[in-house]
């Protein structure tokens, strides 16, 4: 019976306490402050939301309407993701082929691409003549902005954006889960006479069920919290996250924080049981059901046929989804920048060209430069602080008995709606709360730390669990190294790639973050927020340029990660 032995010695108490303290102050407090705010100011909230002297409980109705819309959107997104994501994850996990790492990068793109830029790209792809509409010879966009998908009643554009942004969560999580399951089980099933598809149904899928649940939860929550791109493509509909932004700007803080708390509580109520299920279940999988024989036999025959003849379908369909939702918009944006470079190609007016908007009277170029420096300072500072907290935190999680608990709490900032996060930080550190930091570059930095820490921690943990660090450290200890020496000379080098990957992922994410930043930025504008402003000011070519600029920056950084992890 293998017993899981956690190293006992190895971390000085001061370091542990300091790390947990930093976690509390910089990450957890801001995350959960929003809820406590609602409780503390309950009377205020109650009046504004339910018993408003002017509009009665109209705010509450709004909240409900918006909430239901968000749920419809997110649930349908996840369903779609699963149908196409599971086959793609399987292919990535089990097959080796030329161009595989390129495919993995393409799938990861939406994770690092700035959401507002991406939202904008999707917008022009589908709804304007500069996109698919024009390419197919039409005079206008392919699909109107507010076209609804039947049954679920969500707009097509919004749906596409959400699918694109959540697809990577499903695919990468499941890919990792599938890979973690010893392929020998599937091989055994094949030698016993089962086709590949039957093997998937009977063996790989049941064994990965916890992963399917946690991937779905992650994607669902990400969609619930998605703000940046949604701000741009929502048209007349409103998700919960956008509502928060709008209400905050209207100073309906009570309503906004109530909505935000509702979202946080919902997100948490979903993760917690799933984490518990996935955690415990991971140790004792059991199949409680058995299909009736006739059904089972028919399924087996179909699966045999599909495995032999239709195998290519599972390769192609997901690729089409990725192409349409991710690649095409990016290509369209890049293409448009070129098209619109000096003049508007349709009117011939110079005022409609990129150059004019950047260097002409509106002088967007200087805004871009200023926003760039703001973005980079914020990204560097927040990522650095987050890394300093994340490295010891990862060790604490791996080595203490309460590690699993901390790890599940860390998921909350990751999936919390970014606008809620922004509101929470604003309320905590800003003028309504401790009044330590005013809106601006430092508040943005503090906000970014909150969601950077979980990203870096997860990245380090992945590298940690992929290597037998405890064994090497134990070796080093008995060879004469103190705990600190062992970590410095042996453990850290071994997880170096994890730290670096986490750093770059965080940095890129911070560069492109829109939702939370929008709420706390005050006068210091970051690049993605600038895009939103440009779109609202109808300075389309400028928005085009800025989005492209941001997207290219992210692509370069992604390539850098790839090179580092390859070496």
């Amino acid at each position, binding site marked *: 019976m293998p*017993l899981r*032995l956690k*190293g006992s010695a190895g971390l000085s108490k001061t370091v542990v306490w300091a790390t947990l303290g930093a976690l509390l102050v910089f990450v957890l407090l801001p995350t959960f402050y929003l809820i406590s705010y609602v409780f503390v100011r309950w009377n205020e909230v109650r009046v504004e939301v339910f018993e408003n002297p002017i509009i009665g409980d109209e705010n509450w109705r709004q909240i409900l309407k918006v909430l239901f819309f968000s749920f419809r959107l997110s649930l349908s997104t996840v369903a779609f993701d699963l149908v196409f994501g599971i086959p793609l994850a399987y292919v990535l996990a089990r097959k080796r082929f030329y161009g595989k790492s390129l495919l993995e990068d393409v799938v990861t793109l939406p994770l690092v691409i700035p959401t507002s830029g991406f939202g904008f790209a999707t917008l022009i792809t589908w709804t304007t003549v500069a996109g698919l509409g024009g390419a197919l010879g039409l005079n206008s966009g392919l699909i109107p902005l507010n076209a609804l998908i039947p049954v679920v009643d969500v707009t097509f554009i919004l749906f596409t954006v959400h699918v694109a942004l959540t697809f990577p969560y499903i695919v990468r999580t499941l890919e990792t889960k599938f890979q973690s399951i010893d392929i020998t089980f599937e091989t055994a099933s094949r030698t016993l006479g089962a086709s590949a598809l039957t093997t998937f149904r009977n063996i790989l899928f049941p064994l990965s069920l916890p992963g399917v649940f946690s991937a779905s939860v992650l994607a669902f929550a990400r969609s619930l919290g998605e703000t940046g791109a949604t701000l741009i493509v929502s048209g007349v509909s409103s998700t919960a996250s956008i509502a928060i932004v709008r209400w905050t700007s209207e100073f309906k803080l009570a309503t906004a924080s109530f909505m935000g708390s509702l979202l946080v509580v919902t997100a948490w109520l979903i993760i917690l049981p799933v984490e518990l299920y996935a955690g415990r279940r991971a140790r004792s999988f059991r199949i409680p059901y058995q299909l009736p024989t006739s059904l089972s036999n028919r399924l087996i025959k179909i699966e045999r046929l599909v495995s032999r003849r239709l195998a290519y379908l599972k390769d192609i369909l997901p690729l089409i989804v990725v192409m349409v939702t991710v690649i095409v918009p990016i290509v369209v944006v890049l293409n448009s920048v070129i098209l619109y470079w000096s003049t508007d190609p349709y009117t011939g007016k110079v005022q409609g060209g990129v150059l004019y908007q950047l260097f002409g009277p509106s002088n967007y170029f200087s805004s871009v430069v200023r926003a760039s420096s703001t973005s980079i300072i914020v990204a560097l500072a927040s990522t650095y602080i987050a890394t300093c907290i994340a490295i010891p935190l990862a060790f604490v999680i791996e080595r203490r008995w309460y590690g699993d608990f901390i790890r599940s709490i860390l998921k909350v900032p990751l999936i919390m709606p970014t606008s809620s996060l922004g509101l929470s930080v604003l309320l905590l550190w800003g003028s309504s709360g401790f009044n330590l930091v005013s809106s601006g570059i430092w508040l943005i930095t503090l906000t970014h730390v909150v969601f950077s820490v979980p990203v870096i921690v997860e990245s380090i943990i992945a590298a940690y669990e992929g290597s*037998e660090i405890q*064994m090497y450290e134990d*070796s*080093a*200890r*008995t*060879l004469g190294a103190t705990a600190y020496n062992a970590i410095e000379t042996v453990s850290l080098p071994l997880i170096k790639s994890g730290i670096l990957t986490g750093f770059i992922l965080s940095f890129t994410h911070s560069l492109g973050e829109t939702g939370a930043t929008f709420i706390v930025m005050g006068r210091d504008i970051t690049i993605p927020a600038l895009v939103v402003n440009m779109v609202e000011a109808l300075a389309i070519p400028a928005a085009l340029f800025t989005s492209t600029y941001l997207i290219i920056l992210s692509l370069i950084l992604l390539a850098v990660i790839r090179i580092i992890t390859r070496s």
Partner: protein
Amino acid sequence: MALIRLVNVTKKFGEITAVDHIDLAVEDGEYLCILGQTGAGKTTLLRTIAGLLKPDEGEIYIEGKLVNGVPPEQRNAVYMFQQFALFPHMNVWQNVSFGPVIKDRSSEEVKEVSSEILEMVRLADRKDAFPHELSGGMQQRVALARGIASGARILLLDEPLGALDARLRVDIRRQLRKLVKDQKLTAIHVTHDQEEALMIADRIAVLRKGTIEQMGEPHEIYSRPRSIFVAGFVGGANFIEGNVVKIDSSSSSIEIRGGYEIRVSDTSKRVGEKVVVAVRPEDISVGLEEVSGSNNFHGKIESATFIGGSIEYKIRLENEETVSSRILLSGNLKTYEATEGIVVSFSPEKCFVFPYPKAGLLQEIEAI
């Protein structure tokens, strides 16, 4: 004064007691093997001595000092893993010199010690290679070199040969012991391979369910096992149930199934007591005629298996019991053509007699 002393050491994991109140003393320069099956508690015991685990009860003394709260790096005992645990991001030289470097020795001293030891394990020409470029046997030598170079007096070896091919183990066993003895180190070597333990150890501690069932020199464990488990686990045995029917000054008679009798030289049991007689396959000879002075039984050969340098016979005796005999080949490969009319003989001095176990014989044997 023993170099390592364990007093009443206990370690639990939840409900399971992995190490159960163990007392142990290891002398300076001794090569001790801890022998037991998977799950017996051997690795837990070793890790506790190393300081990688804290015991729940009991004290551990190394070089006369109580080391219970002392961290691993100060215990002068290096732990070696089955998978060698060579640092993958360092080459052979960096691995081997890790110990002296981390202990802040001067660079001349580091160089001297590391070169000398690499010479000793005959790997000086591979000092720039990385672990993944080396074969299993070479990796093991580097791991040993690294342990010795650290200056530790005690080597704690956790199934050190387990990751190597079976045939390779036989050769490396000898080299391992020689290296330890030449360097005048003390070794505690954990294994589930009793043949390995018998060949390599000065003393063996047989571990079962967290306690030491028997401890002594290999020769003693082999020829004077104190329990059915030890008799079966170390060296293997045939087990025959019976009842004591007669005792005289120099021998006892045990009645077994079918009314047959075995004469044994053990006179410590009482008449009427239910017992189990154990005879090793190596002590059973197979022939066509009775051997005077021995117990003789007629029987049929059920199978003859050639195992490397020995032949193992399974013989069904007249009373329907089956015994196995294992004879080392010695010059000619004589296998018996006829399978009937075989005589199986074993001497009374080679029989071990144990009281019949309360839980039943099958349970005890299955535990082996």
